[in-house]
């Protein structure tokens, strides 16, 4: 017996914690398939009627579509700005760039509520309240840290001599970026993009403050749903969201595994 194994107490308690993490999320699956008109477990049969309700409701579909477009735009902003910034900081690598990297991490350190009330006031002056651009910009900026972190991690494994080699052979900065650096860190960029996308797709606090009627994202509709009418359609939406997020995560895991090879 070479490896140290956890004892029975550790095994059982870890199992309980895992159940605590996963069970509440899984319980919404049977609830979403209830044959009843209220939030409960199925009584007599499984039914997909609540999925049908959601997927035929123009309001839900509009919100899903809108959230999707915002997330795409926000991801584009976060990926472009975050990747370039991470590369610049990595290459220059000095005290001032450490400060810039710390600045880029602020959105995950400072609570969204503080940013949300700030934007509420700031966007009013710029006429960006309740605008697609406004929400995309806010989500994009707050998505930058996810990209900076994943790309910095990818760059940490990048041999800096490859950059030197390219420059030494006459490649310009743009050529080095395009042909040498970016191809090597693509998995890191994709990971960052996935996280930035999920961030925007799930974001609610900022939206509560800077959007009202014209921009009504999916989380905003779920929020209203939970506060107003707790019906099984909410469970169906929740399941769809879980499936979607898990899919993105599995995609990310696959990318990481390929990178590890």
């Amino acid at each position: 017996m070479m490896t140290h194994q956890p004892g029975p107490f550790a095994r059982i308690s870890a199992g309980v914690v895992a159940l605590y993490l996963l069970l509440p999320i899984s319980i919404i699956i049977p609830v979403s398939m209830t044959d009843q008109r209220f939030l409960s477990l199925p009584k007599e049969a499984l039914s997909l009627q609540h999925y049908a309700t959601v997927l035929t409701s123009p309001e839900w579909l509009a919100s899903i579509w809108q959230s999707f477009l915002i997330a795409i735009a926000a991801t584009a902003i976060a990926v472009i700005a975050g990747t370039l910034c991470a590369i610049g900081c990595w290459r220059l690598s000095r005290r001032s760039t450490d400060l810039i990297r710390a600045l880029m991490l602020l959105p995950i350190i400072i609570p969204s509520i503080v940013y949300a009330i700030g934007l509420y006031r700031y966007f009013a002056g710029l006429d960006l309240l309740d605008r697609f651009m406004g929400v995309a910009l806010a989500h994009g900026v707050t998505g930058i840290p996810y990209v900076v972190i994943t790309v910095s991690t990818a760059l940490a494994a990048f041999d800096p001599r490859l950059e030197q080699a390219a420059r030494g052979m006459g490649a310009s900065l743009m050529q080095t970026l395009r042909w040498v650096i970016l191809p090597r860190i693509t998995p890191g960029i994709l990971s960052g993009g996935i996280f930035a996308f999920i961030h925007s797709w799930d974001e609610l606090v900022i939206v509560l403050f800077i959007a009202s009627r014209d921009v009504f994202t999916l989380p905003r509709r779920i929020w209203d749903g939970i506060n107003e009418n707790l019906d099984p359609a909410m469970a169906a939406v929740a399941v769809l969201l879980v499936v979607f997020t898990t899919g993105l995560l599995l995609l990310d895991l696959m990318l990481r595994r390929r990178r590890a090879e």
Partner: protein
Amino acid sequence: MSGATGHALAIERLSKRYGSFTAVADVSLAVGQGEFLTLLGPSGSGKTTILMCIAGFVAPSEGAIRLDGRDITALPPERRDFGMVFQGYALFPHMTVAENVAFPLRVRKLGAAEREAKVRAALDLVQLSAFGDRLPRQLSGGQQQRVALARALVFEPALLLLDEPLSALDKKLRAELQDELKALHRRIGRTFVNVTHDQEEALSLSDRVAILNHGKLIQQGAPAELYERPATRFVADFLGKSNFLHGTVREVFAGGFAIGAGSTRVVTAAADSPPLGSQVLLSLRPEKMALLAEGETAENSVTGIIESWSYLGAGYALNVAVPDFGTLRITLSTWNAPIAPREGLALRLGWSAAASVPVLDDAP
């Protein structure tokens, strides 16, 4: 595009400081057209920093770098047109061998046909024509090294810089590639600047070697000149092995002088002699001493006792305790060796006046 002959490089009073640490201190060097220069030194001697200054990756604190008389000190690396073989090769892992070699041509926007022809010629040059489609990780260390060479030469650079090009290889392969590298240099006639900490490599490859220590240039010259006439204790010790004899100058005569240490007198040849009574240090190579037979004489001789010895295949190395000089190391060919070494054996060592060289004692 540069011609077939190489270019001349001049390094003038180059210094590089990092805060209070001086990596390179006031080094001047000239590399002639088509010359193979090696910067040799232990780690931390500043040799790599000098190479990085030549390549343009490190900006000198002071001094200038000139190519054929033109000041290139401020030129960014991508505009210098120097080929470089990096330590560990720095091959692009996501590109095939051919794509790696084509890279410098691609950044120069050469047409596809011309690019292909040049890549083929470069791969031929290093005998890797059959490996163009492989990825670097599918090649052996020696093959990767040759790809790095082809990539550095394909755009006919003004200068080829080599940063420890053979250090990642095992000993046998290293010897093989040394010969290849030397032949390549003869064939293409370009100017090469090589950096290494391996003295054998420096001696066998270079037209000229510059020895560095603690950021300073200690001595430069042809390999044989450096080995035979080291200027300082550091050079004598770093290039091959050497015994050091401490003594006081007792007599001075035309073409040499004699030192005394205790009751032993040693004569040495020298162009100019130090003043009488001064302390000097002589370097004496282990292979330049011989065992003296009964009644045989030499300009210098001492008797001693074998302290320890080892068998090295081609030769024996004996550590012989002698009066006044401590332990001397001597090497003998094993073939037809006059004695069978054993510990405690008494013997007599002899050497000529020309065998030893006075050196400056720069030991810390």
